[in-house]
């Protein structure tokens, strides 16, 4: 046990782990930004095109909903395998971090769309009706009512998104995208380096835990400011 500990905190191990961590952070941050905007737009679109929504468009809603469900129902590993070759057309390469980002966005946008939709569904109908009655346009209602009112829930769900992206990055990493996932598979699995495997797990745990704490903190602060808790 002590031996393992000394191995984990060995300089050689961290020479491998630190660059991999940076790569993971790079992939996660970039794909988080992209997924955030796409998911936000799609989530709002799903909400307002609903049958009783602000701008009902049932056909769009059905087709789009079905597409989201289709991607959600596939294991992320399979989507990544499917998307990596397609990445070549979009970013020019089918391997490495860049290609991985495309795959990550495809995997996580549907998830975040649903999370956004579920967050803004919680805004009471009465508030939307009140805004409508005051002559607010749909854009006004989205920007001034739906998003601010659901902000605490949106932040919590944003954390869920980032955590999902970190773990998906690890999966993509094992498929040749680089980052912590690749290190875990290449060293930890193929070469039986338990010390490296454990170091990877430690880094992932710390990353996720910090994010979760930060997200909960911000969300709670907003709720407290509004005196909702």
């Amino acid at each position: 046990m002590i031996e393992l500990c000394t191995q984990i905190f060995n300089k050689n191990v961290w020479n491998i782990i630190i660059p991999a961590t940076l790569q993971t952070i790079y992939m996660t941050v970039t794909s988080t930004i992209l997924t955030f905007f796409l998911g936000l737009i799609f989530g709002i679109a799903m909400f307002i095109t609903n049958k009783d929504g602000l701008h009902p468009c049932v056909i769009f809603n059905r087709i789009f909903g079905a597409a989201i469900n289709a991607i959600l129902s596939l294991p992320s590993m399979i989507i990544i395998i499917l998307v990596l070759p397609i990445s070549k057309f979009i970013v020019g390469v089918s391997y490495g971090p860049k290609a991985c980002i495309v795959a990550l966005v495809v995997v996580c946008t549907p998830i975040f769309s649903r999370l956004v939709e579920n967050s803004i569904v919680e805004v009471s109908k009465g508030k939307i009706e009140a805004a409508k009655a005051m002559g607010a346009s749909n854009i006004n209602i989205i920007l001034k009512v739906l998003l601010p009112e659901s902000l605490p829930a949106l932040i919590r769900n944003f954390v869920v998104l980032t955590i999902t992206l970190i773990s998906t990055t690890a999966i993509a990493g094992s498929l040749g995208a680089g980052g912590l996932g690749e290190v875990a598979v290449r060293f930890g699995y193929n070469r039986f380096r338990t010390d490296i495997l454990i170091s990877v797990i430690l880094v992932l745990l710390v990353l996720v835990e910090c994010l979760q704490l930060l997200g909960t903190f911000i969300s709670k602060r907003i709720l407290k400011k509004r005196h909702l808790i």
Partner: protein
Amino acid sequence: MAVPFIEIKNISKKYKSHKQEFEILKNISLEIEKGDIFGIVGFSGAGKSTLIRCINRLETVTSGTIRIGKVEINKLSKKEMNLYRQKIGIIFQHFNLFDSRTVFGNVAFPLEVAKKKKKEINKKVTEILELVGIANKQNFYPEQLSGGQKQRVGIARALANTPDILLSDEATSALDPVTSLSVLDLLKDINKKLKLTIILITHSLDVIKYTCNNMAVLENGVIAEKGKVKDIFENPTSTTAKVFIKNNANLSVTYNRGNVI
């Protein structure tokens, strides 16, 4: 006789649900004068809320016309509709304030929607908060306020764009009798000060008796009777009014000002 300010003519509203068609409003006609406080009373499900929502077109009528001033509201385009809605305030039973905004922010909302300048918004909001008596609470969030204070914010928000009409959708139903009275007093006060036409729906005859000049009784989507409040109270003809007034004799004790409860 002069042309009434609000003229609701033969409107009906049908609603389809589970392949069945319901007629919530049947051939309703009402005339409301400018500056009047008009009460619409009825049991739950009589169609009161639907009727009031037709006036600001949160619901569209199936047939018939609603004319306000010179505008026939069913002919307005969506854009015109939004401009028109700025001139009709509405207050709700459950207030529907925005939790993400302070009292000030809530009242500023309709002004932001109307694209007013920041300076103008500041001036107007301060002025209205003064009028409804909660100027000292402008940096509070809705959750920090009592029911009565919340409804005052609701009223302030509804008045922000100096509307011609104020719709009140059971605005005092969620409040205790004393607070109700103070809110109704405020409505009467602004009716006088701003020469505002108020349409008030309620299931309480006490509210009507205390506040309104004219009233209509809604029964299963039909107007059972309409006229001056005094006349209907003295000589009710519809069953709803009779039931209400009979029960009212016991209830009105709580509403006698000065010796509340």
